[in-house]
C-alpha cells in the first residue's frame, strides 16, 4: 500500500510550551483518518502545520514524497491538498456556484484573465461538484443566504474542486446540529469510498469519529498516545484515562509547569 502522506517528528512549541512533540504517522491511499484529543492536545497546531499556516520547529510532512514544510498554504493547495475550515470561509458576495467556479478558475491558472466572463467558466464542472454534495438546487443562491450546514457542504465542494489527493478537514462538524453532523460525515465517507482522495480530520464529536473513521489517532499534550481502529481506541486504557480522567493528567500538568 502506498502512503499519501508521511509525517515524521513534527514538533512545535510556543514560548517554551510544547504544543506538538515528535508526531509521526502515515496516511494510506483512500484512508479516512481522525485526529482526536482533549482541548489543548495540539490538534489544531498539528493541522496548521500540515496545511502551511504554521511552520514547525522540526519534522517533515511529505505528500507522495514531496516535502510540504516551508511552503505557503497556496502552494500546498496546488500540490493537491484541499481543506475546509472550522469556521466556514467562503466568498459571501458570490453565489454558491460562483464560489466553486472560483476554485476551478484558480486551479486552471486563470485568475489573471481580464477578458472572459467569470460566471461562464467551468459551469458544468462546478455543477457536478455541487451535485456531489447535493447542493445543485441552491447553485444560484447568494452564499450569504445559506444555512450553516449548507455552507459546510459548499466548502466541501470547493475543497474537492482541484481533485486533491488529500483533504484536511478541521472540526468539520463544529457548530452543526447532530443530525446534520452525521449527514455531512456520511457524505464525506461516501466521497472517500469513491476513491481518489484521502482525508484527515479533527473532531470533538466521538459519535462521528467512531461511525466513520477508518483509523483514529489520539493526541494528548502534543504527543500521540494511541492509534488504531474505533474498537481498539475505545478499549485503550490510556485513552480512557485521558478522556475520562484518572487524576494523573493533572498531576503531570503540575510537574510540567
Amino acid at each position, binding site marked *: 500500500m502506498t502512503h499519501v502522506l508521511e509525517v515524521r517528528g513534527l514538533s512545535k512549541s510556543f514560548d517554551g510550551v510544547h504544543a506538538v512533540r515528535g508526531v509521526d504517522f502515515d496516511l494510506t491511499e483512500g484512508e479516512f483518518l481522525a485526529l482526536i484529543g482533549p482541548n489543548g492536545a495540539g490538534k489544531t497546531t498539528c493541522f496548521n502545520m500540515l496545511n502551511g499556516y504554521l511552520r514547525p520547529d522540526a519534522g517533515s510532512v511529505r505528500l507522495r514524497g514531496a516535502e510540504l514544510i516551508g511552503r505557503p498554504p*497556496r502552494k500546498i493547495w*496546488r500540490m493537491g491538498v484541499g481543506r475546509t*475550515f472550522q469556521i466556514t470561509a*467562503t466568498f*459571501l*458576495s*458570490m453565489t454558491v456556484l460562483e464560489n466553486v467556479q*472560483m476554485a476551478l478558475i484558480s486551479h486552471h491558472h486563470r485568475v489573471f484573465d*481580464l477578458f472572459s466572463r*467569470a460566471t461562464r467558466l467551468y459551469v458544468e464542472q462546478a455543477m457536478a461538484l455541487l451535485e456531489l454534495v447535493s447542493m445543485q438546487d441552491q447553485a444560484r443562491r447568494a452564499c450569504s443566504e445559506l444555512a450553516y450546514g449548507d455552507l459546510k457542504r459548499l466548502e466541501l465542494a470547493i475543497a474537492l474542486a482541484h481533485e486533491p489527493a488529500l483533504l484536511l478537514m478541521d472540526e468539520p462538524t463544529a457548530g452543526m446540529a447532530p443530525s446534520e453532523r452525521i449527514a455531512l460525515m456520511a457524505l464525506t465517507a461516501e466521497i472517500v469510498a469513491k476513491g481518489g482522495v484521502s482525508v484527515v480530520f479533527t473532531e470533538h464529536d466521538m459519535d462521528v469519529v467512531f461511525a466513520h473513521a477508518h483509523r483514529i489517532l489520539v493526541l494528548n499534550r502534543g504527543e500521540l498516545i494511541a492509534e488504531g481502529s474505533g474498537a481498539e481506541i475505545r478499549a485503550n486504557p490510556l485513552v480512557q484515562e485521558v478522556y475520562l480522567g484518572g487524576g494523573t493528567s493533572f498531576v503531570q500538568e503540575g510537574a510540567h509547569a
Partner: protein
Amino acid sequence: MGFYFAQLLTGLANASSLFLIASGLSIIFGVTRIVNFAHGSFYMVGAYLTYTLVTMWSGSVLGFWGGVILAAAAVGLLGLVIELTILRRIYKAPELFQLVATFGVVLIVQDVTLAIWGAEDLLGPRAPGLDRAVRIMGEPIPEYDLALIAIGPAVLLAIWLLFHRTRWGVLVRAATQDREMVGALGVNQAWLFSAAFVLGAFLAGLGGALQIPREAVSLQMDLSIIGEAFVVVVIGGMGSVSGAFVAAVLISVLNAFAILVFPQISIVLPFVVMAVVLIVRPYGLFGKPGSEHGAPEEPDQPLTLMSQRSAMVLATAVALLALSPAVAADFTMILLVDVMVATLFAVSLHFMMGIGGMVSFGHAAYFGVGAYGAAMAVKFFDFGMLPAMVFGPVCAATAAIFFGWFCVRLSGVYLAMLTLAAAQILWGVTFQWQDFTGGDDGILGVWPAKWASSDQVYFYVAFVLCIGGIWFLRRAAHSPFGYTLRGIRDSQTRAEAIGINTNLHQWMGFALAGGFAGLAGVVFAFSKGSVFPDSLGIAQSIDGLIMVLLGGIHALAGPIFGAVAFVMIEDWVTRLDYWRFIFGAIILIVVLLAPDGIAGGVRRLLRAVKGGAA
C-alpha cells in the same frame, strides 16, 4: 548648542498643538470608527471663536484663558449638534460613508466662517503675561512656547486620568477595543458615541484656540492641519491617545531639525515618516490589529449582468453622448469632457475600493502622475499627443506598482492612510521640483495635436479613451481577475486556501486602477492645456471618494452616477455665492436620504415603484 536646544523647544511646542488636535481625532476614531474630516473645521472654528472672545476681553489674563476655554467648550457643543443631527443617522451606512458626511460639514463650516468673519486673515493678540521671550542658553524662546510645552503633557495626563479613573473612560477604552462587546454588555452606545465626539471636538477647539498667539487665523486652517493630524493619529495607532502624543513629538521634533538640513522637506516629512512606520509596524506604534475596520458590513449581493432594459438605456445614453457634438455648444463639450474624465477616474477608484476592498485616500496621485507624465513628455521629449497619451498612463501604472507594493500589505484605514502618504509625497515632489514640474506654476502648453485641436474632435478623442476605459474596467469587474479581487475582499483566508496569491493579485489590481486613473489624468491635461500640482492634491482624491461613495460603492454603476452628478452639480453650484455651503448641504442631503448612495437609492425607488404597480 543653544541654537539646537531652541530648535528642540520649538519642535516640542509644535508637538503640543499637534497633539491636541490629533488626540481628539484619535478618540473619535477609536470609539466611533469615523474618519472625521471635519476635525480640521473644529480646529478652525475654535481659533476664530477665540479670536473674537479674546479681542473682546483684551488684555486680561483671565480674559485670554477664559476665552480659550469658552471657545473650546463651544466647539464641543458644535460637535454634539453635528453628531446628533447627522452622524447618528448614518452609523450603519457602509464603511467610510460617514467620511463623505464629515466632508459636507467641512464645506458648510468654511462658508459659515467666511460669512461671519470674512476672508481676511485675522491676527490675534498675544497671551497676556506670556508675550515676551526668555533667553535660554543665549537663544530667545517665546514664553508662550514654554507654556504650550507644558500644556501638551498636562492634557495628556488629564485624558489619561479621565480614561483610567472614571467609569466613562473605562467604557471608552473598552469600546475602542471591541464595540460590539460593549454594546452587548448593555452600555448605551449612542450616548457613548456622542460623548466621545464632544470630547474630540473640544480638544480640536482647544488646539485651535491655543494657536491664536502663534499664527494668523485663516480659512485655510482646516484642511492644512487635517492631513498632519491624520498622520499623527496613524503613526500613534488609531484610537491610542498616548500614541498620538509620541507621534506628535516624533514628527514635530524631526521636522524642527530636518528643515535645518533640507528646508523644503517639511511638506513631505510627516508623510514619509508615516510611510516608514506603517511599513515596519502595520498598525502604528501603539495600535492593535482589529482597529483598522469599522462595523462589520452586510455582504454585497452577487454581481449580475445588466438586464436587457438597462443595457438599452445605457446604449442610448452612450449614443446620445456620441452624437452630442452635432447639437451642443462648445462650453457643453468642455463640460462633457470633464464629466467623462471624472467618470473614468471614479470608476478606476471604485475598481480598487468597491471591487478590491482597498480604500484609497490618495487616488489622485495616479491621476496627477498620468497628467504630469504626458505634460513632461510633451515639454521635454517633444512627444506628440498620442505617444504622450500612452506614456502618461504607463507612468501612472509604474507609480502605482511602486507604491502599491507597500500599500497592499496593509488593510482598512491603514491602507487608506498609506495611499494618502504616497499621494502627499508625490504632491510634495511635484510642488517643489521646480526645474522639472514648474512647481506651483505647473506646466503650460499641453495642447492636443493639430488634427484634434477643435473642441468637437477632442471630444471624440476623450470619448474613445474614457468610454473605452470605463468599458474595459467594467468588463474586468466581471472577469476572473475582478472576481478574484472581490473574493480576496470577501475572505482572504478562502482566497489563500484555493491557491490565490492575494498580495500579488491586490497589487496588480492597484496597478490597473492606477493606470486607468492616469489615463483620466492624460485626457484631462490635454483638455485643459496645462497641469498643476493640485491635480494630485488631497482635494482631488476626496472628490473621487465622494463620487464613489455618493454614487454607491456596492453597485458597478455607482461611480458613474456619482461622477456625473458630482460634476454637473459642481459646475452649476460653483457659479453661485457660498457654493461650498450649498454643495455641502447637497452632500448631506444625499447622505441622509440614501445611505447606500445614489445607485442604492435609485434601486430602492425602482423596487418601490414596481411593488406599487404589482
